[in-house]
């Protein structure tokens, strides 16, 4: 089925019937041809333009990082009291974005949510690339990144070990585990498709390249038996893992005594925020990609609508987190807490960031109560970008606003990011885009083997219900 035909099928859907998770009855070979189409097609001009743009920003990242390492982190806007600024904001933001990938691939798999099938590969790739960007920031923030290996427990000539009672060490283990497990999960899920790429390739180079990554996959029934169990177990492990990662990230803050950080609501509130921002990023990326790649019959309006519902639900959880923070500030009777929440954040020098956060994270998702908004592609796309902005401002608000006005007025100071801060941030966006475009070009962005399985299940069900 050619892409225009697939689009036409989506447009011909009966508006009174619920939108299916897979439009039409494409055969296995048709699915392969369609989903592998972008890999085998010649490079498009639009892809090259986007790639050039992203790669330029990635080059900016390399320049800015080199400059930082060569000169020292004094080139950043960080100061005392604002010792954690852009680096930790961006770290938490990128890690949070990654969470939707694991949620879609693992948690929705365990809950047998079929709509995950066409978007999981996509979301997992997003997770990997987002976590890579996240790791850049704390690695630089140590100040002497060439000593970062000190974070790992290895028998050193110094004769000392890391302090495992520090939340910062928990972070090292959580984020690295998260990256490695996500990588394994993604790669294992990719194996059947890599074998299919090897077997449908036209050139010897492609056949060898995909053949090496396919490791010799033969679709053996003996292996499928182990494979399905292994995949399910990995999903089962990833589920608590993804919840633990942002919980531990929130401990970096919650375990301290700073007003605005020291709150027991932090772990669930951070996890909800992570899933919220992650789904927003999936929407931001998937909406243009499904259009350009012609995947509207496998990533249907049903998928987009479900993601909008997740945005609404997690947006409400995040709003509850805000409410709980403000309530605790008032109910604790602590002067510093209430000063922060009711003076500094709302009326201080960074108040616009606070109100932007409230607008993007609390007000914007409410439009998804309306079905019409959930079904409008443009509304979804713009809202998803606003949520990404909102979640970035939330981290700014937590980190910079809390730090710049702490206990003693004599130690108050403003924080202003420098061009290096902005360049590193923009550079990670470019690096993320570069990696993502390479992924879209060389790897099938929708899992053909899983969609084939989904089609069999749907047919089996249709058959069973027709029989009664």
């Amino acid at each position, binding site marked *: 089925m050619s892409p225009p035909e697939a689009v036409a099928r989506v447009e011909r859907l009966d508006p009174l019937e619920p939108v299916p998770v897979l439009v039409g009855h494409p055969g*296995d070979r048709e699915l392969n041809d369609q989903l592998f189409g972008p890999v085998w097609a010649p490079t498009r001009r639009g892809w090259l333009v986007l790639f050039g743009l992203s790669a330029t920003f990635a080059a900016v990242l390399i320049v800015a990082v080199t400059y930082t390492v060569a000169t020292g982190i004094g080139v950043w806007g960080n100061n005392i009291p604002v010792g954690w600024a852009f680096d930790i904001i961006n770290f938490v933001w990128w890690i949070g974005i990654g969470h939707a990938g694991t949620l879609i691939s693992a948690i929705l798999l365990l809950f047998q949510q079929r709509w995950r099938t066409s978007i999981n590969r996509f979301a997992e790739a997003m997770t990997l690339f987002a976590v890579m960007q996240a790791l850049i920031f704390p690695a630089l923030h140590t100040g002497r990144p060439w000593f970062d290996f000190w974070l790992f427990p290895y028998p050193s000539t110094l004769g000392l070990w890391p302090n495992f009672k520090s939340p910062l060490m928990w972070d090292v283990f959580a984020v690295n*585990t998260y990256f490695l*497990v996500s990588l*394994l999960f993604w790669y294992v899920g990719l194996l059947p498709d890599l074998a299919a790429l090897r077997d449908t390739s036209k050139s010897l180079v492609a056949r060898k390249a995909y053949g090496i990554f396919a*490791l010799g996959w033969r*679709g053996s029934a*003996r292996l499928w038996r182990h494979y399905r169990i*292994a995949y399910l*177990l990995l999903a089962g492990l990833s589920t608590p893992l993804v919840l*633990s990662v942002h919980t531990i990230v929130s401990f970096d803050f919650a375990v301290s005594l700073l007003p605005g950080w020291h709150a027991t609501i932090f772990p669930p509130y951070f996890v909800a925020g992570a899933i919220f921002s992650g789904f927003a990023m999936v929407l931001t990326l998937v909406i243009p990609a499904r259009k350009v790649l012609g995947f509207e019959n496998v990533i249907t309006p049903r998928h987009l609508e479900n993601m909008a519902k997740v945005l609404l639900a997690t947006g409400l959880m995040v709003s509850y987190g805000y409410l709980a923070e403000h309530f605790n500030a008032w109910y604790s009777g602590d002067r510093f807490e209430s000063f922060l929440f009711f003076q500094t954040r709302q009326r201080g020098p960074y108040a616009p960031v606070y109100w932007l956060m409230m607008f993007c994270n609390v007000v914007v998702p409410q439009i998804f109560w309306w079905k019409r908004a959930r079904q409008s592609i443009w509304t979804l796309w713009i809202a998803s970008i606003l949520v990404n902005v909102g979640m970035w401002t939330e981290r700014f608000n937590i980190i910079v606003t809390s730090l710049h006005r702490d206990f003693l007025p004599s130690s108050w100071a403003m924080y202003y990011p420098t061009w290096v801060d902005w360049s590193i941030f923009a550079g990670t966006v470019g690096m993320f885009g570069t990696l993502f475009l390479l992924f879209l070009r060389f790897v099938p962005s929708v899992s053909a083997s899983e969609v084939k399985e989904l089609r069999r299940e749907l047919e089996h069900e249709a058959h069973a219900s027709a029989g009664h």
Partner: protein
Amino acid sequence: MASYVLGEFADDAAICAAARSLREAGVAALDAHSPVPIHGIDEALALPRSPVPLIALVGVLLGGSGGYLMMWWMNAVDYVIDVGGRPAHAAPAFVPITFETTVLTAAVFIVGGLFALAGFPRLHHPVFEVEAFRTASVDGLWLSAEVEPGRAEAVAGELRRLGARQVSRVDEEEEP
């Protein structure tokens, strides 16, 4: 040296019936190849239980106890860091990393175990000699039997009788 006989079948029911029939006829080294798992093939081939859950359990136990013992030995035995008189062996503070090492080790064991069971990486296999076998990852359902060369023709005939759409034979080359 062995011979491989491959037969392609039209649907899940046909391949399962053929697998069962060949197995009952005494062909032991049977395997099926398909783009997605075949419904009912596990019973037809009488596949044993997968050891993957056990491998995962070993990973969980090693990762959990190893992580905790590592922290205990490093922070409470080998190099005690006294921060304001807090206990050197602080169980609650060791929970997060214990959890992470548990998950990481288990995941590495699961994937490593899967690859070991599959014999990965094994980039070449005699069945790849058959050009038509390339459909096994796209839309083809193939049954393969590893037999001694003398028996290959008989098994090929049996596959045809059981309804295979096409049958091929590969003879493993003698090692030079």
